[in-house]
């Protein structure tokens, strides 16, 4: 039996174990989940060791020319281990601050130049067609839905204004359509994955049966 058949059989079994969730939470499903998480984590650690630590940290330590550029990351990396102990967690504060600070600065810069400004310009350009009106209506009505300002009614109840209530109702439609689209995409993704799994199982069975 070839490696591909064995891997296909294991894959088939694990797929069936996950499908067993249809009858409820069962050990086969849990076994399949735990196995998937363990394999994925082990694979990730191996990849990180071979792809990050060895080439970017350990190898430069042996190279005097790059030693100075490695000591600082090494110290910061080691200090992050201090986060495991509450007593010495402050030692990892600086490294964490560097990570969060640099990441935030990068994200903000990228968001400004890659998302906000281009998207604003694109939204303004889209008004050349009806698409822009729909986008504007959808944006305004959705924001109106999240307007929670209200006044006290004579019957001592608190209600939003009639106009805001109408806009909020229309905005709720836009939100429902958006969430429906997203759910449809998730369904399509899941359906595709299911089709792929069924196809692989059927193909394996066909190959096993020699059909």
């Amino acid at each position: 039996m070839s490696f591909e058949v064995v891997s296909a059989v294991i894959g088939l079994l694990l797929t069936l174990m996950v499908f067993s969730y249809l009858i409820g939470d069962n050990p086969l499903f849990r076994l399949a989940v735990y196995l998937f998480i363990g394999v994925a984590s082990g694979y990730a650690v191996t990849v990180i060791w071979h792809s990050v630590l060895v080439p970017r940290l350990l190898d430069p330590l042996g190279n005097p020319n790059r030693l100075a550029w490695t000591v600082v990351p090494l110290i910061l990396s080691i200090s992050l281990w201090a986060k495991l102990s509450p007593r010495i967690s402050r030692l990892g504060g600086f490294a964490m601050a560097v990570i969060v600070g640099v990441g935030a600065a990068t994200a903000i810069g990228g968001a400004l130049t890659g998302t906000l400004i281009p998207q604003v310009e694109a939204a303004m350009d889209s008004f050349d067609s009806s698409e822009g009106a729909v986008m504007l209506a959808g944006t305004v009505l959705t924001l109106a839905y999240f307007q929670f300002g209200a006044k006290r009614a004579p019957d001592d109840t608190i209600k939003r204004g009639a106009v805001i209530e109408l806009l909020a109702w229309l905005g709720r439609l836009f939100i429902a359509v958006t969430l429906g689209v997203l759910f449809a995409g998730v369904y399509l993704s899941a359906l595709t994955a299911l089709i792929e799994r069924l196809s692989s199982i059927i193909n394996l069975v066909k190959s096993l049966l020699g059909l």
Partner: protein
Amino acid sequence: MAEIRCSACGKNNPDFLDSCQFCQSPLIPESKLFIGEEPTKKDTGELEEILPDWLKDVRQQGKNAEAGDDSFRVQTQPRVPKDEPPDLLAGLLSQSETDEEEIPDWLAGIAASSEKPSLSKPSSDEGPPAFFAGLDQPEKQTVAPTPSESKPDEIPDWMRAEEKTSKQHDDLSARLSQPSSAEPVEETDWAKTFASFDSFAEEPAVQKEPEDLSWLRELEASSKEMSETPMPQARGSEFTPAASNEDLSWLNELGGISAPAFEEPAPPSSSSAEEDLSWLTNLGGATAPASEPQAPSQSSSSNAELDWLSDLQEATNLPSAPAFADTGELNSGLGIPPSSKPFQTAPLNELLGDESIKDVTPDWLKNALEESSMPAPGSVSMDWFSEREKPGETKAEDLFASSQGEAVSSQPAFDFSLGDSSAAVQDLDALFNVEMPDWLAGGQEGGAPPSQQEAKDSAPAFAENALSPVELPSWVQAMRPVDSALEETAASVTDQITETQGPLAGFRGIIPAFPIGSSLRPKALSLKLQVTGEQQTGASLLEQIIASETTVQPQKEQAAVSSQRVLRWVLSGLFLMVLGAVIGLGSKTMPIYASATHSELSSLIATIPENAPVLVVVDYEPSFAGELEATAGPLLDQLALSRRAAFSFISMSPTGSALADRLILNTGVGGLGYQPNLNYFHLGFLPGGSSGVLAFIENPENDFTRFEGVILITDHAESGRVWVEQLQAAGPEIAAKPLLLVASAQAGPLLQPYVSAGQADVMIHGLYDAAKYEFVNNSRPGTARAYWDAFGSGILLAVFAILSGGVWGVLMRMREQRRAELEQE
């Protein structure tokens, strides 16, 4: 007769005398009586037998005379208690009732002078017996020597002058009494004492007898004898301290002539001085020291019996007489007899009447010019002045005369170091020496006549007692820093806060409780929450929300779990059977239609140079591998087939490398001869998120610009956004490179804005786009197409399930409504 030798003068005296008849020194030390002492009563009846006959006769005659004079008793008895003599006369009064051994020294001197006639002229017909009879009668003892009442018709000129001056004094007293500010306290002991002397002197004025003039002859003789003795300065100290001998000047003026000196300017006082001195000279030794140049007034007396006074005047004009005579150059310059000037008994400016004097006077003396150091005239303390106007006051001068004659004794009659007498002397010192600085006092002492110096030397104790330490001159007091300090302190004290509450109420300068802190102590706040109505409404609303969250909601009745599980099983079985059947059958019945977008994508791929490196970002989870492999297969197949692009795989997920290998294997690229590290490369895991992406893009070693295109395969919109943003931020050159997005069906809608905005060139999301693009790509690799019927079936099943569920729901609602209607019916 036995004789006693005087220890002072060495002369012999009869044994019945207590004091020497020559020097007035006490012959028996025990006979001294001090001021304030109560004379002890002694029974001298046993001595009656040893008295000489002539003395017994005299006493008998005195008793007869006493019995015949009832008016004498009537007038004398009430006077003694009325005047209320001070302690100074207590001894005299008591002595008057006892034996003459109890007589004090100074009074004994008077008695001695009175007895001298009896001694010198024991054979005198009537005078001496009457005199000694008076001695036997205490009430008559001091009355005997007053000649004024005994012979009113024979009042001498000097006595008339005295009455005249007394009237003037009365007027002056009346005028002085108006501005008087004297306090009753100023009626000091010395004034009382002197008043008592006045009253004491009045007594003999009533009991005058014609025979009393005989004693004057005897007194004349005794005065002649005493004229050779030194001036009795110590006797003057009975009323003033020895150091302030000047005090005797005002005493001299107490005789009635000093009144003009209080207010009258200098010329009138000088003119009246002659009149005043007339009585002073007649007064006998008491005031004679101040009447030295007034001898003519004495000569004006026409009474032959008063010739002795001239002798007495001569006797009292000894150099040591004027105790207060030296008042400085002021008096001498004005031509005023120094002795006629009282020493600070009135404001000196009024006394001197010359304002220019103030210019040459020191500051301390200016105060004296403005204020009188004497008790203010007209006050209660000056009542004795009015009494001086009585006719009998001449007896006081007799007393002074006697005291002057007694002054021959070197011993003081009063011991001021004992009892209240010392206090009286202190008062006198403070009164007369308050404004006298030491240096000036020294100058006066230095310039004093030899008589004064001798008198001072004779009574050094008085000089010491005369200094009053508490009475400092004004200029010395002004130099005292204590005053200013006290003023400042007093001012500060007034600024202090007075406590009004608590146990310290009434105290000044209390540290306030509140600023220490106090002011800093936080004010007590009420624990009751102060909220407005709006806040209260918001709080109630929040409370309702929280309560609704915690309130157990009644669950709606649902169908049995079996039915749902069955439904789930039914649906699952349906999907598995339908999809499995479609996949197992390999059906490709569902049509696929190409779109313009996918044609544009093929055109874009065609622009990529051959064998050009293309960066493929594998950023998705293994669960989405089936979808994304089917979605990215047509694109990678076209690039590998048509462009022979060199793929460089990089992943932001640790499993990316494995997924990349699976992607090459399952997309059919591997079938095109692509070999690892030859036709495709694994760049490995890219940690760091957006930072790692930016670092990878900007790292010169990676040479990102060498990539002709970037294919981003992702299953979540976040990863696609990071890559789009960082490529956009890397620069226009990198941003201009073709960016192809391959996304799952769930991430496609979220990445569509970047494609619509032109930030990404093309996006293929889901199996729907992949099947269409595969159709354009000549149905290569065929994976999408193989899934397409099943995918369509699954969508139809989903639609069916949704519709079935909807219909089921509607049916269930209709069923419930029908049941409800049936129940209502």
